[in-house]
């Protein structure tokens, strides 16, 4: 029986079956379209639409030989199968499958599987057939290319499941057969040549077939744990496949959706398959291997790729393991990895520290995305000002990572460091700087004094972007592909990197462009560098649409001038950098010296940007400037370590001077390694968790209220406002999240709060709590840098004499008051029932016929139902149980368009790389 499947070479298959030494009784082509029928007719064989039809018409037949179209069986293939099956009393026997393109290459000699029904051959890639598997043996399954089975078994099982893809169907048939006690064997003496279907295993149809096969054969207990594991394993495989340039999420999702649709039919088939079984799941496990074959395959492939990209040009091989392990590049790489893991360990355990502008990611990743896409900005008393793109990107990554914000924070931080170090290695390899020097430069780049300064500024976006910048430059500098498709792909790849960087920290969009411009100027006559600059510029321009809708509505002047750009330069470190740069300039070979000169220019320009408060520059420019400094220092350190290894070029006095450069660079590496002590990736220690999370332990739901935070300007979470020269701001209880970091321009509610604080400061009330309750302020926390902080002391003086504020003791680090006034909540119904925060909206008990006061800045998009303005706040109905802000359609559309643009860029980049 020849299964017509894909219009493969059916005549050749028919011919190979006809030429069998062991002659067949009938040759039937099954399935396929009219072409298959025509081919069958032309070759004088029967054609039947389905396997079931064949079984019906073959009442006197004892065995059936299934052959897939396109398969070319050797003349004794069937004979060997028949003999082997008869000798072993097997019910199903399969042939050895060889690659039709390379008949010496093994494709399968039967399969083991994992618990997820994924076939496993046990072969190395491109393993040749040298008779090493020529042993008749029992297997979990045989490939569907050439299978001999007993007719009574086929009749009992109903043949292969036609709803499944071929490989999955073969595995499924064998599993069902084994469930009935049948023996499945591989007969290596039976050889067929077939198309290599390995890549098909990742397709949705094969994945879906495997899931269906699991559901059909396993007992309930096995399914209870195996199905969730299959789901997670598939997700992990899809995620890791991203790093191999494969987008597998849709395959994964489609497979599960298909099974959802097919579930009734699958359950019916399950009933048929398990009815009359003579063995249990333990028998099925006999030929299974542990773990996930698919996942292992991806991980192995990924490891190989990483290995190929890592220092050392030799391909990884078992024989070379010992030698590789002794290579400095491997050791340095391993130490770098260990360093990153140690230096970020605290982020694994608690997430990013809550201090300054570093606040935990929003609780809900999808919520963050929708808030960005035209939703409500929950900072302070809320506004319609757009959130920064960082929120959307972080939310997207968090969503992918099971909506686990701590994991997202860790992955972004660790990923940035690893990718950054790796990127510097790759960037410096452009100029033949070897891996050890590159890795050390990478460490200084991601964790050195400048990078630490970025972290100390709690510029989270810039700190993460540091990992992307060298890649963006490397992509632009790499040899330009020959084909236009690949060229377009290259530019779009740069655009993707630039876009991701811009979403994290918009000003960093310009860093690779500016850096490459300086490099081109230093190599004025080198056209390839001007082209690299052009690629980078083009990528940056293409990346701009990704910043919408933020870019369309943000106050860009305020964005670049908020705060004061003044980086207090660490003088000792600066002197060391100057020494290193000068020594490399003097002593290194010309090319290395020029790279160091480039780094020095970048460091100088970055330093100027980071200290340009006098020109009105703000905090964002400062952080971007320090990132430029970090890049420059990395470009100085790399050549300094490389120069000392160029024994032939650097001799005599140059060698001594190079030694000085290395000593200075070692100092910089040492300062980078210091980050291991804190384990926070250079960020300052957490301050706000201790300050705010007490509210979670207070009676009632803390999410119903806000915390008024007071202190010195620049010492509060994120942005602050000032009154009387001191700072204040509102944050959500129990813990503010990153979407609250940046305050909007003051609106009606903010003005009211300012007036209220002024009246409290002026001593016009002794019941400040009563005045603050309408703003949802249930707690007041006064943050002080020192015990004698004049700002904290001033605020304490104001609030300590209030009759309705209760100071909270209990060992709190900061002066903290609790408001005794009634209804100190963010949203309250007319009956006085508080509602709690849910994302950027609120939820609570439904109360019909009465209103709900939502204490956010008034905006008529709050709903549902009729909206009214209550003072500076909103009045909506309490009848629905949930209230929220209706998204702004235009911004939502822009966000979707930006996402589509990102996908399009990704597609073009992938296509260019793959097909160009």
């Amino acid at each position: 029986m020849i299964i017509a499947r894909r219009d493969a070479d059916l005549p050749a298959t028919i011919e190979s079956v006809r030429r069998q030494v062991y002659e067949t009784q009938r040759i039937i082509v099954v399935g396929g379209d009219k072409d298959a029928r025509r081919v069958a007719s032309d070759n004088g064989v029967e054609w039947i639409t389905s396997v079931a039809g064949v079984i019906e018409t073959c009442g006197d037949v004892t065995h059936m030989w299934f052959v897939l179209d396109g398969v070319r069986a050797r003349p004794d293939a069937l004979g060997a199968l028949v003999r082997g099956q008869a000798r072993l009393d097997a019910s199903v026997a399969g042939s050895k499958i060889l690659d039709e393109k390379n008949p010496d290459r093994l494709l399968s000699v039967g399969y083991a599987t994992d618990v997820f029904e994924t076939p496993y051959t046990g072969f190395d890639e491109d393993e040749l057939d040298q008779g090493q598997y020529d042993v008749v043996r029992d297997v979990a399954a045989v490939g569907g290319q050439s299978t001999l089975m007993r007719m009574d078994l086929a009749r009992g099982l109903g043949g292969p499941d036609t709803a499944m893809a071929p490989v999955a169907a073969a595995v499924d048939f064998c599993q069902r057969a084994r469930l009935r006690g049948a023996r499945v064997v591989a007969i290596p003496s039976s050889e067929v040549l077939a198309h290599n279907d390995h890549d098909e295993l990742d397709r949705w149809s094969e994945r879906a077939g495997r899931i269906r096969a699991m559901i059909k054969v396993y007992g309930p207990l096995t399914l209870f744990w195996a199905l969730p594991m299959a789901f997670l394993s598939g997700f992990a495989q899809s995620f890791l496949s991203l790093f191999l340039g494969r987008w597998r999420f849709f395959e994964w999702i489609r497979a599960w959706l298909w099974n959802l649709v097919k579930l009734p039919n699958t359950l019916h088939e399950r009933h048929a398959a398990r009815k009359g079984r003579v063995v249990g799941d333990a028998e099925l496990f006999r030929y299974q291997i542990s773990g996930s074959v698919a996942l292992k395959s991806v991980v192995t492939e990924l490891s190989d790729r990483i290995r190929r990209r890592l220092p050392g040009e030799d391909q990884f091989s078992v024989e070379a393991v010992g030698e590789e392990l002794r290579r400095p590049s491997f050791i340095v790489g391993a130490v770098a990895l260990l360093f990153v893991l140690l230096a970020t360990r605290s982020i694994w355990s608690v997430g990013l520290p809550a201090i300054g502008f570093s606040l935990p990611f929003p609780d809900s990743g999808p919520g963050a995305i929708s808030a960005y896409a035209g939703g409500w900005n929950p900072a302070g008393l809320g506004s319609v000002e757009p959130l920064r793109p960082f929120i959307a990107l972080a939310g997207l990554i968090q969503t992918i990572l099971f909506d686990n914000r701590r994991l997202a924070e860790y992955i972004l931080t660790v990923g940035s460091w690893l990718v950054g170090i790796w990127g510097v290695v790759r960037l410096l390899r452009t100029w033949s700087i070897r891996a050890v020097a590159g890795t050390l430069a990478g460490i200084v780049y991601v964790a050195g004094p400048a990078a630490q300064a970025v972290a100390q500024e709690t510029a989270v976006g810039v700190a993460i972007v540091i990992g992307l910048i060298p890649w963006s430059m490397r992509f632009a500098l790499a040899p330009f592909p020959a084909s236009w498709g690949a060229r377009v792909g290259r530019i779009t790849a740069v655009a993707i990197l630039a876009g991701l960087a811009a979403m994290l920290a918009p000003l960093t969009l310009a860093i690779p462009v500016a850096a490459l411009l300086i490099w081109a100027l230093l190599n004025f006559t080198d056209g390839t560098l001007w082209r690299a600059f052009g690629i980078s510029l083009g990528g940056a321009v293409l990346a701009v649409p990704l910043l919408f809708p933020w870019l369309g509505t943000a106050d860009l002047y305020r964005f670049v001038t908020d705060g004061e750009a003044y980086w207090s330069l660490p003088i000792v470190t600066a002197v060391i950098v100057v020494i290193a740069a000068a020594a490399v300039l003097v002593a290194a070979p010309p090319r290395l010296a020029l790279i160091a000169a480039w780094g020095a220019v970048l460091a100088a320009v970055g330093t100027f940007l980071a200290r340009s408060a006098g020109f009105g520059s703000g905090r964002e420019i400062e952080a971007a400037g320090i990132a430029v400094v970090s890049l420059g220092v990395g470009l100085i350190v790399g050549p300094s370590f490389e120069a000392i290894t160029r024994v032939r070029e650097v001799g005599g006095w140059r060698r001594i001077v190079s030694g000085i450069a290395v000593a200075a660079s070692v100092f910089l590496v040492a300062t980078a390694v210091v980050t291991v002590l804190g384990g926070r990736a250079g960020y300052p220690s957490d301050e706000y968790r201790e300050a705010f999370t007490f509210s979670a332990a207070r009676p009632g739901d803390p999410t119903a209220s806000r915390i008024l935070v007071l202190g010195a300007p620049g010492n509060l979470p994120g942005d602050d406002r000032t009154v009387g020269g001191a700072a204040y701001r509102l944050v959500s209880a129990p813990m503010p999240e990153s979407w609250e970091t940046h305050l909007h321009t003051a609106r009606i509610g903010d003005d009211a709060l300012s007036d209220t604080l002024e009246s409290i400061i002026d001593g016009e009330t002794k019941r400040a709590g009563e005045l603050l309750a309408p703003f949802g302020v249930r707690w007041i926390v006064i943050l002080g840098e020192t015990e004698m902080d004049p700002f904290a002391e001033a605020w304490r003086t104001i609030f300590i004499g209030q009759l309705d504020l209760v100071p909270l003791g209990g060992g709190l680090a900061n002066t903290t008051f609790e408001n005794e006034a009634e209804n100190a909540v963010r949203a309250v119904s007319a009956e006085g029932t508080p509602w709690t925060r849910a994302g950027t909206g609120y939820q609570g008990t439904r109360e019909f016929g009465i209103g709900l006061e939502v204490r956010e800045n008034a905006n008529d998009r709050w709903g549902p139902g009729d909206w009214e303005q209550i003072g500076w706040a909103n009045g909506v109905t309490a009848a629905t149980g949930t209230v929220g802000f209706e998204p702004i359609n235009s911004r939502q559309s822009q966000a979707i368009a930006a996402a589509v643009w990102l996908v399009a860029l990704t597609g073009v980049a992938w296509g260019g790389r793959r097909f160009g």
Partner: protein
Amino acid sequence: MRLVIAAIVVAAVGAFALVQTEPVAERPPDFGVPPAETVGASGDPSAWYCPWVVSGALRDSTFNLGSMMDVNATITLPNPNPTEDPSINETRLRGPGARSIDAGDIVRRGTAPGVVEFDDGPAVATTVMWSEEILTGDRCVASVPKEWHLVGGITAEGFTLELQLFNPFAESAKVTIEAITEFGRSPLAGFESFDVPGRSWVTEDLSRVIPFLDMATFTVTSESGIVIPSLILNNENDEASWPGTGQSTIWDFPVTSLPGLEPTLVISNTGSVGATVAIDLFTPDGPILDADGRIVAPLEPLRIHLADLAEPPFAVRVRSNAPIGAIIQAAPEGTFPRTDILPPEEEVGDESTDEDAPDDEATDEDTADTTGDEESEEPVVYDGLAAMPGNTDPLERWLVPGLGVVPGAETSIWILNPSDERATVTVSPLGVSAVSSEKIVIPAGRYVEIPMPSLSESGNSGMLIDASLPVSVAVSIAGPQGVAFIGGVGVG
């Protein structure tokens, strides 16, 4: 060449970066200075803390409220049991108006210090307390400085001195109390970092802590939290109480004595250098400027028997070149121990003939000058104990509640015009009253006493004093129970 150019660029840009100056450092906030002690009422909502109120089986007390505007007043009496809610009385006061609220109507459980909150202003609060044997009263305080001065303590034989520390706030207060006696600074064992629970009070019998002292001044300093202190002095005849104050270079005492009582002035200097103090007396015959002059040494409180300077009655102004604390105490002769040096008799006589004394007479028929020397009936002689901190700022407007509320006692308003011009003063009842407004001319450097009818007669418990010049006002209440002096509350 390229390296040289790069080096030059680096040097130039680097140098330019280095010379960038740091932004101007943040200025400290323009608020947060602990409030100075003030006794004036402002036009804003306010809270008045009344530390010494007792309402029980033997004693009655009233919270006396006065306001120039329509206000809602809330009197909150904290419960010493922290698990129980405070007792609260809410009152609507039509302005200008005055009302006295019997503390016993709110709660009658003995000591009941309270807070009076007004939702608008100017509005003020005082308290009066009496029994069959005592009569005392205080003005309440509106500001809560970190350091309080309580001048005039005596723990000599026959006196009982108590310190009331009232903490109306939720936060527990930690205070340190120091005594300055005739022997210098005396540490008070057990009163360092002394805890006063939130929304509660502590009454300490200082007579047992530092007994047999003729002179004791106390400073109460808050380390954390805030308290409102008050001293309570008892002898066998009466009780006097007065709140803590700040320090000032000017103290005005419109009333210093009543018939039968001898006025004494207690001055304390807690600074580091001696304070040169001058005492002006304002007699019915005219002012006696610099009637006495002293250098008050640091940490050496001083009691001056004013009757040695001139024949009472008179008003007093104390001037100093450094901030000092001052209080007037009045009691029958011989009650207070003598520690000062009696000046020669003739010097006093010389002072009394001061040529600078204005000779204006308050004779206009529009006036009700009661300070004249016309013949009168046999004066009533009082036997009691009164004390009062002075007023630090003469003002043109004063609110005087709590008039005529003590049964059987005489109440008078005392107005001092310390300036060298005559002042026209309008005394108007607060609210509907049988008493009508009247204008009084007070000659320069004189004072007037305006007797007030009882509340049952006038239906009015408060007066608004409007003057053409800054004046200083106080109230005396005297009856068979005892005597009380209450400082006025100006409208700033």
